[in-house]
């Protein structure tokens, strides 16, 4: 019986063409300025997730974030974030993540390693992902941190990490409708 369930689950998963439910999905960040945590999110992104619970190493994730869709809650900050010292969206409008390996780390838990490209700079990172299923729907959730200066995000006078901390936390929840 368990085998059948697992098999069905695996079939559903591999059949999933990653129709992302944008209403339930969220890619958010928290940066710290003057010791004040400030939350924001990206409004537009695409995600292609191919998940195979039976053979996690065959799973793949590709995420493209439209950096112009940044929402910090302050129009001034959003405009500033698009400018050259920060994301420089005129030149680098998209952040991309391409997974290179996915391995099981526990029950419903995985570790995704991949290449994050921001502002023309690519770094390898590993993020924990929790996978939950509800019917046809699959929810991928996780959090990790990057150092903004690794990607020259906020250079020039903004490179002062006493004002804006180097570490930026990222949280994602990708809801695949399975349709």
């Amino acid at each position, binding site marked *: 019986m368990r085998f059948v369930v697992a098999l069905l689950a695996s079939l559903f998963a591999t059949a999933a063409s990653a129709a992302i439910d944008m209403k339930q999905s969220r890619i958010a960040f928290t940066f710290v*300025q*003057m*010791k*004040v*945590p*400030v*939350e*924001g999110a990206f409004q537009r992104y695409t995600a292609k997730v191919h998940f195979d619970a039976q053979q996690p190493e065959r799973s793949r994730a590709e995420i493209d974030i439209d950096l112009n869709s940044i929402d*910090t*809650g*302050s129009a*001034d*900050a959003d*405009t*500033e974030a698009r400018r050259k010292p920060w994301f420089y969206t005129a030149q680098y409008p998209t952040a991309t993540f391409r997974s290179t390996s996915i391995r099981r780390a526990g029950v419903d838990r995985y570790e995704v390693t991949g290449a994050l490209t921001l502002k023309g700079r690519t770094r390898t990172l590993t993020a924990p992902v929790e996978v939950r299923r509800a019917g046809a729907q699959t929810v991928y959730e996780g959090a990790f941190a990057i150092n903004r200066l690794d990607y020259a995000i906020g250079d020039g*006078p*903004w490179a*002062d990490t006493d*004002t*804006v901390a180097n570490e930026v936390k990222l949280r994602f929840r990708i809801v695949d409708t399975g349709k």
Partner: protein
Amino acid sequence: MSAVTRYTRTAIVLHWLVAALIAAAVGLGLYAVSLELSPQKLKLYSWHKWVGVTIFLLAVARLAWRAWHPAPTPVASLRPWERRLAGATHALLYVLLLAVPVTGWLMSSASGFPVVYLGLVQLPDLVAKNKELAETLKVVHFVLNKIMLALVALHVAAALKHHFVDRDNTLRRMLSWRA
């Protein structure tokens, strides 16, 4: 009970400290608003908020102190309407010493930039992040400040009038250091 004729040293110190901090908060606030977004602007905003929180705490301390150490009775030469006007101005100033920082705090929360007092203590967000509410609170914070500054101007004008025109003891009571 004998009539109180002078302010305590504590009351005098608190009065002038709050006066200086109001000048600092108003200066920092107006200057920071005028700047383009920069690390400097973020610093000034944070300092402005710290000064505001300090004013609130000192206002509470002043009210507590005043409850145990009554303010001197107004000089005898005051006409009844002057007495009433002075009383109302002082009461309203106390209200604003509390209300202005609170509206700044709420506005910070609604804007998604919480207050971290002295970079050490994060104040709770009493309202959730909400752009419309933030805009409304911004106007309320600004208008209350204008009312407060108008009252401060009246307060200063009255003190100078007592000192230079009436040549009475009103201002001297708030300056005299003798026990």
